[in-house]
């Protein structure tokens, strides 16, 4: 009998770690993975909330899970495009250091 | 609500189809892009004619309505609500016609970034149609602001030497006015719990009567709406952006700007200010009439002193739109119907003038009036069409301008709301002054000995494409001038309905 609280706290912690990863790492692949971690944290919260709603109301409730399903699908798409972009950047810049990709600066 | 074919949605968004097709074309395929854009604009015009054929002019109410719930948050009822009535149907037809003509007139004038140009032109048409069709303030506001963006780019990319300045000025000015309107829209929506204008109209009289919205608040709301529209019109003294925008805009931009965008301002007054705030409108009528009168005289006087042909016509717009404002706030059927006819007229005549000036500019690349002269001898067809357009703009009986000016002045002269014939009397001096500046333009360019510019350029008369561009406008000038009954019959029921709601 785990309280929902715990799941939520875990989710928040995982999310913050993902954020941290995005902020401190310079390797785009790891940044990308951190983003995936954040998505996962959110997914966890989704499922947990869905579950607690189900229990509180005493009837099946799937929206949380279905959202997770969609998130997974979107993540797959995102990864496909994102990795392709990273490969392309590597080919043109010959580096994976994200700090070298700063041509957007004003 | 029974389902019917969403004709107005099709009409509004059809240009997007053209945009999508153009997106798939390479930018080198300039002719293909032009043809796609023109075809799209023509089909849109066809759709507007189709819609017009379903329009029943005897019916004063909104027709072909499409009303769907769109956003419902916290008691805010925002609808996707398109409909047309006698007040707007002519303007929609004018918009679709002028859009097609504007695209046709850029055939050779724009060689640079044709793809972008056509995309922006078509998007602009979406915005303009939306403005005239939207019956929900939220939707209206979106279209209203949306129409700014393509125009901004049209001026800013394809304009003259000071294009960026003009584009930014155009954008900032119209934006500044709109923000006040947005506040007023939100206030109204909070009070009435709806964004739909017809719904508001059924709720508002009760609110006014109960004092929920005080007379002072009504006036403030009126002023907030008026701020947005008056800048767009532009009413004197808020016209400062207009000459810059017109002078720098490319021909098609000027045509659309003069022909349609300015009408959005006057249409706003007609559609929102008068019915939503009837008491304030009646109170404000003399003041607006005064501003309109000043605008008529001032625009005409300033226009006469210009050396730049496009600027001259730009200032003449200030004068013409002064007439429209005067007619609208006469708040009697003659004045309001005359004002709507005059909106159409101004779109046709001034649109035609800008087209014609664009044609000569394309040949000579100068807008200085002093280097022209004697063009009628060298370009007889051009001269003759220009003559018709100028005299139509001046208000010669038998051409369209006269019908509008006469009914406006007649209405304003006997208006109960303005309650002072002097405004109309002084405005009638504007008729003389119109003759002065138009003849100045016509004489300096077309009469007299051949000007300097003819020594440097081999000036060819209009080609077929250019003549075709002008024909619909010339036909309309004569049609409205000689047999305007059908146009008035379209307007009359809606105008009578609008005015019957006023506590006059």
């Amino acid at each position, binding site marked *: 009998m785990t309280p929902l609280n715990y799941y939520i706290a875990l989710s928040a912690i995982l999310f913050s770690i993902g*954020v941290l990863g*995005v*902020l*401190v790492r310079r390797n785009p692949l790891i*940044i990308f993975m951190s983003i995936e971690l954040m998505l996962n944290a959110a997914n966890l919260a989704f499922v947990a909330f869905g579950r607690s709603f189900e229990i509180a109301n005493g009837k099946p409730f799937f929206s949380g899970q279905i959202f997770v399903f969609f998130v997974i699908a979107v993540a797959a798409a995102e990864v496909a495009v994102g990795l392709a972009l990273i490969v392309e950047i590597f080919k043109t810049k010959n580096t994976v250091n*994200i*700090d070298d990709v*700063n*041509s*957007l*600066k004003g | 609500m029974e389902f019917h074919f969403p004709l107005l949605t099709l009409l509004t968004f059809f240009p997007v189809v053209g945009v999508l097709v153009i997106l798939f074309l390479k930018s080198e395929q300039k002719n293909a892009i032009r043809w796609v854009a023109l075809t799209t604009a023509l089909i849109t015009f066809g759709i507007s004619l189709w819609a017009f054929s379903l329009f029943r002019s005897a019916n004063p109410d909104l027709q072909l309505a499409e009303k769907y719930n769109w956003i419902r948050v916290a008691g805010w009822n925002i609808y996707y609500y398109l409909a047309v009535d006698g007040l707007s149907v002519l303007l929609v037809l004018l918009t679709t016609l002028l859009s097609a003509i504007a695209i046709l007139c850029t055939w050779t004038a724009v060689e640079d970034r044709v793809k972008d140009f056509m995309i922006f032109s078509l998007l602009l048409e979406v915005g303009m149609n939306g403005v005239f069709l939207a019956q929900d303030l939220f939707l209206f506001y979106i279209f209203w602001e949306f129409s700014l963006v393509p125009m901004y780019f049209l001026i800013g990319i394809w304009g003259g030497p*000071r294009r*960026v*300045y003009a584009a*930014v000025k155009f954008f900032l000015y119209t934006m500044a006015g709109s923000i006040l309107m947005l506040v007023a829209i939100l206030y109204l929506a909070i009070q009435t719990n709806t964004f739909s204008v017809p719904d508001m109209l059924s709720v508002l009289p009760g609110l006014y009567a109960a004092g929920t919205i005080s007379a002072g608040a009504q006036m403030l709301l009126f002023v907030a709406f008026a701020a947005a529209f008056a800048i767009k019109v532009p009413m004197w*003294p808020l016209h*400062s952006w207009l*000459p*810059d925008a017109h002078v720098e805009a490319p021909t098609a931009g000027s045509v659309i700007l003069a022909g349609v965008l300015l009408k959005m301002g006057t249409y706003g007054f007609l559609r929102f200010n008068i019915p939503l705030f009837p008491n304030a409108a009646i109170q404000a009528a003399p003041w607006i009439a005064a501003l309109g009168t000043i605008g008529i005289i001032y625009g005409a*006087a*300033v226009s*006469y*002193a*210009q050396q730049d042909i496009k600027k001259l016509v730009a*200032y003449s717009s200030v004068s013409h739109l002064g007439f429209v404002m005067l007619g609208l706030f006469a708040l009697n*059927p003659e004045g309001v119907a*005359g004002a709507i006819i005059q909106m159409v007229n101004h779109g046709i005549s001034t649109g035609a003038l800008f087209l014609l000036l664009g044609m000569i500019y394309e040949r000579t690349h100068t807008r200085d009036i002093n280097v022209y002269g*004697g063009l009628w*001898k060298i370009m007889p067809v051009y001269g003759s069409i220009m003559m018709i357009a100028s*005299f139509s703009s001046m208000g010669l*009986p*038998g051409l369209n301008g*006269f019908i509008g000016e*006469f009914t406006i*002045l*007649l*209405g304003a*002269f*006997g208006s109960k709301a303005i309650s002072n*014939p002097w405004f109309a*009397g002084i405005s*009638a*001096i504007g*008729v*003389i002054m119109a003759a*002065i500046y138009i*003849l100045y333009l016509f*004489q300096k360019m077309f*009469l*007299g*000995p*051949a000007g300097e510019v003819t020594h440097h350029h081999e000036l060819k008369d209009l080609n077929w494409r250019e003549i075709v561009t002008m024909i619909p406008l010339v036909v309309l000038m004569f049609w409205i001038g000689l*047999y*305007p*009954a059908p*146009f*008035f019959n379209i*307007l*009359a029921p809606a105008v*009578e309905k609008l005015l019957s709601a006023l506590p006059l």
Partner: protein
Amino acid sequence: MHLSEITSSGFFFLAPWLVFAPLAGLLINMIFANRFKFSENLIGGIASAASGVAFIVSILLTYSLSLQHGEAARWRLAEWFSIGSLSLDWTFRMDTLSTTMMLVVSGVGTLIHIYAIGYMREDVRFKHEEGRFARFFIFLNLFLASMLVLVSGDSYLMLFVGWEGVGFCSFLLIGFWFEMDTLGRSSWANSNAAKKAFIANRVGDFGFLIASFLIFWNLGQSLQFDQVFEAAKNAPPGVIVAITLFLLLGVAGKSAQIPLYIWLPDAMAGPTPVSALMHAATMVTAGVYLVTRSAPFYNLVPDAQYIVAMVGAITALFAATIAVGQYDIKKVLAYSTISQLGFMVAAVGMGAYVAGFFHLIAHAFFKALLFLSAGSIILGIERGHHHAEHAEHADKSKSKKGKKEEHGHAEHGEEAFDPGDMRNMGGMRKTMPVTFWMYLIGALALSGIFPFAGFWSKDEILLDAKLHYPAAYWLLTIAAFFTAFYMGRQIWMVFFGEARTAPAKHAQESPKVMTLPLVALAILSVGGGALNFPFEGFHNLGHWLEHTLGEVESMPLNLQVAGVSTLLALIAIGISWLIYGRKPLQNGEPDPLKKALGFIYTGMENKWFVDEGYAALVIKPFDKLSQFLADVVDWRFWHDFVHERLIAGTYNWISAIALDKYSDKQGIDAFANGLATVSQRLSAGMRKIQNGFVRSYALSILLGVVLILSYLIFK
């Protein structure tokens, strides 16, 4: 509701063809003439036929009208527009007044069309613009159509359409040779004259507009004649006075009365048939027609009538004095026209509508005759000029000739030869005998010599004036004296003595196509008086117009008035013989009157400096005002100072202070620069943030998230 019923009997169904016929002619010539290379005779023939059809229609309409004893008839063609209480139709009105005008307009018009075939054929050749032949007839037909709309309209607004329409045609035709002056030199003069005419007319139109607004709102919300006249009976007189005076402004514009007459002399820049048709016979009489048409208004307010009569009488005298001092044959006739229009306006102002109308018709005949003869003289001299030049060229070297021809007509000779200047004429009764006799008839008719048409019509006006307005009577009588004098001066200077220049010596008579219309007009000028002889049983015109105007006073011949005026005319002609006939003017000699009258003559010669006065008092100030408004008020103050400096500048200044404390000196600058500076400064600040490192962007996002969450927590 309608006082005269819409009719369907007789030939009234033809009424629209009054307008359609000239329009058809116009369209045919416009579409086909240049494309299929119509010959000049065909173009002119089509236009004349169109005009002729209109004349025949007028006759048929008059006939139908006489069948129903002059009872007014109306024919509705189509709805025009209706909105609110304003409802207008395209309805033609046939009553005795309008049919009379139709007959005059289309009849004289047809003759002038025919004449113009001959005249324009030579005119376009002298100016090397053969392509413009068709254009002339298109404009002429358009004018006829507008004029017929004017006279046949059933409401003030339809009248106004014709009213402005003829003004527009007048603009087109005065500016027909828009790239030159009257001597064919490259110049803005003709187009200026056209512009002046249109604007002066527009000032009058302004009066008309205001009058029609007053009519609409005060007289039963209608503009239809019968209805407003009915309503006028119960209207407050103040309103009627206002209406009539604003109408008078319109009349002054169209019929060239003080103070708006200034455009008419300049209008002589148009080809001569135009001067004859529009600026003498028909268009300028529209004002007289308008007053007559509005007779029910004027009859109600004698004060307004008095003002109209005095305006007319003063104009008559004023213009007559100027005519004395002119040298250009057409200018003399132009001022004479203004003067005669003054007679007519005075007459209708006095309520003597029949007399005014009688003079209108007679004047249409003899003034058209005079103008056309003048045109014939001018062309005759042009022919002589060319003849003389060719003779001259034959002597000179061929290279020079070639060069001259290259330059075209405009640059012939060192100083352009003016074929219209009477000082260049003389002795032309020998070279152009037919024209001479025709001109003489016209001049005698104009001077009011028995038994020509002008005698009868003018005496009727004078008699009316004597009975009602003695002041006007004296003004008009003196004007009649001057009239006879300047016509005498003209005859002596042009036709008698010896030719003062070679062209006048070699002048050739005009072809038949031009002289035949002259003969026709001369016959009308002689016999026109028969329309309304002042004897019992002969007041034909009076009885005819009575159907429209109500009871009309018929005047018996007053021997005293007739005697005085005839005697004065004869004396004037005698004086003119003493000055100009006895000792013919020599080439280069100044006008003998100049010595005699001194500065008065200088005034006459310079048109009393009225044009200069207008330039100084109206045109210059308006130019200045407009320049001031445009340059100082609108551009430098409103556009640059308020918008660029105050609004944009303040914004820039604030942003400059906010973003960069060192460079606020440049903060106040033009909007464009300012905006650029602002964005530069903004971006300079933003650059530090926009470092291109994605990570730091993400950090700022996170910062935002944290802040928002903090807000949510602590709110």
